[in-house]
């Protein structure tokens, strides 16, 4: 089977996220970058699917040239082909979706249709919750987001999705698009061999352009800090009485 997984390069923030002076972006001067967590799991799903069913998995990102790092990482954990749609600034969700649709069109025209296209449920940084859904609609393929379980058999994808009450199941006929949620699997670490191979992997760069959509970032800001006025209830096990007094006071006993 042919699987495409779409990923986004995002900052890997520590305990505090700082913003650049102009309010336009996360200050990444002291941050590393990573693949958005849901998408890291989508990459693992793609690798598992081709291991189980044969075929080939391709990873695609629309982002800055530096996103090559995330593509090579995907190559080191079992993805065969890497495609970089290089753009110089962050695109809005509508524009991103249009760009991805056009790249998918080119890839499918040369090598045939993908049976499955995987996205992360939402990107960690922008959290737009829409690119995968827009792409699926443009391609007229079924989509379900939030997949916490995925098995493929006989031309169908069976999906499990978590709810407050348990799990919902969906069955999509391939070709289909699926939004993967963290927790569906535990992404593997690259092996030394995988790491070495990924250095030599061929990263294909494609040109992409699309019209801007109607949602425009004006600026980022930090939410007002809660004043740090932590009440220290005590030190060590002797604090237990104060904790239980508090639980009593707020009616939690």
């Amino acid at each position, binding site marked *: 089977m042919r699987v495409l997984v779409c990923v986004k390069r995002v900052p890997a*923030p*520590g305990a*505090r*996220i700082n913003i650049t002076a102009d309010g336009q972006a996360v200050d990444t001067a002291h941050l590393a970058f990573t693949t958005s967590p*849901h998408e890291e799991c989508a990459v693992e799903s793609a690798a598992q699917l081709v291991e189980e069913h044969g075929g080939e998995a391709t990873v695609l990102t629309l982002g800055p040239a530096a996103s090559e790092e995330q593509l090579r990482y995907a190559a080191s954990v079992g993805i065969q082909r890497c495609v970089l749609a290089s753009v110089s600034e962050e695109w809005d*969700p*509508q524009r991103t*979706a249009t760009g991805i649709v056009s790249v998918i069109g080119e890839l499918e025209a040369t090598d045939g249709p993908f049976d499955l296209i995987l996205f992360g449920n939402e990107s*960690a*940084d922008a*959290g*737009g*919750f*829409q690119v995968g*859904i*827009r792409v*699926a*609609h443009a391609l007229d393929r*079924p*989509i*379900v*987001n*939030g997949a916490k379980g995925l098995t493929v058999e006989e031309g169908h994808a069976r999906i499990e*999705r978590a*709810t*407050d*009450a*348990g*799990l*919902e199941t*969906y069955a999509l*006929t391939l070709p289909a698009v699926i939004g993967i949620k963290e*927790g569906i699997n*535990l992404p593997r670490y690259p092996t030394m061999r995988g790491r070495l191979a990924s250095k030599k992997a061929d990263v294909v760069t494609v040109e992409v352009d699309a019209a801007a959509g*109607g*949602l*425009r*970032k*004006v*600026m*980022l800001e*930090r*939410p007002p800090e809660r004043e*740090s006025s*932590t*009440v*220290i*209830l*005590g*030190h*060590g*096990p002797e*604090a*237990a*009485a104060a*904790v239980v007094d508090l*639980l009593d006071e707020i*009616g*939690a*006993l």
Partner: protein
Amino acid sequence: MSAPVLVVVEHDRGDLMPATLEAMTIARDLALAYDAPVEALAVGDVAAGTTDRLGEFGGGVVHLVTDELLTDYGPEIWADCVTQVVRSLAPSIVIATGTDRGNEVMAGVAARLDAPFAANCIEVRPTEGGVDLTRVRWGGSLLEQARLDAEIPLVTIAHHSIEPVPAPTPTAVVTSALPVEIDQALTRSMVTGRVERTAGITLATAPVVVGGGRGVGSADGFGPLEALASTLGGVVGCSRAVTNNGWRNHADQVGQTGTRIAPDVYFACGISGAIQHWVGAMASKHIIAINTDGDANMVHRAGYAVIGDLHVVVPAITEEILRRRG
């Protein structure tokens, strides 16, 4: 009066989801700004009493789209129904819940209308030709001021960002049955089955959550946390570090990519308080951090803290509760 502020009702096989009432609450403010009525739209049959409940929150008209094919939730078929209603009503703005379903349906509507969509807003301010809005990024640790240009803005409201408040006076509800052409092909992505959990309390709804982080040290280290949780009728949660170490299942993970919790009490045991964890826990009413490091982020952010080793503090708390209960 302008065209209505339209709220998309989230329900599960008829049962109203509470997030809908948060959207209704914001919708009333927007209705004032637009000088427009609030109307609601439900796709599929809703339980008896639902329309009255929407009336209590200011919904004057509740549009009902029913069809024998709409037996359950389906992201595509719901989005298609909402799209048709939006086309025929041409509302001033469309608001949905910032939940898995709400965001999914609204993204589908946006795709069909080829219109912009802003997910997880906490503030929406109507202006000429669209709205200015504030939405959450990084799960709530950053705010984005954004501009959405559209004739009919499509937004969802970040879950737990506001308290649902009923209207000062309930509205007498009029229901309207809207004719919609159901596209049978879109049943392709409807729910086909369910596995219901038997246990009643879940992480998302528990009144007490006892969370453990890297400081717990091992899977076995969660035993005392389990004991405290069960003593208080709560459940155990964990940070991403714990899941990544394989100590607990991802279903227990609290945070941006796990579950958002909103209990009365959250015990954060041995959790440093990375931003991704914090955004999942910040809706908790009372947070008690238990940490050996008095400088941990979690200690600074929590309302209360005990400085000490969770491995002795947690059992001491359980013991004290049991002692007082006799």
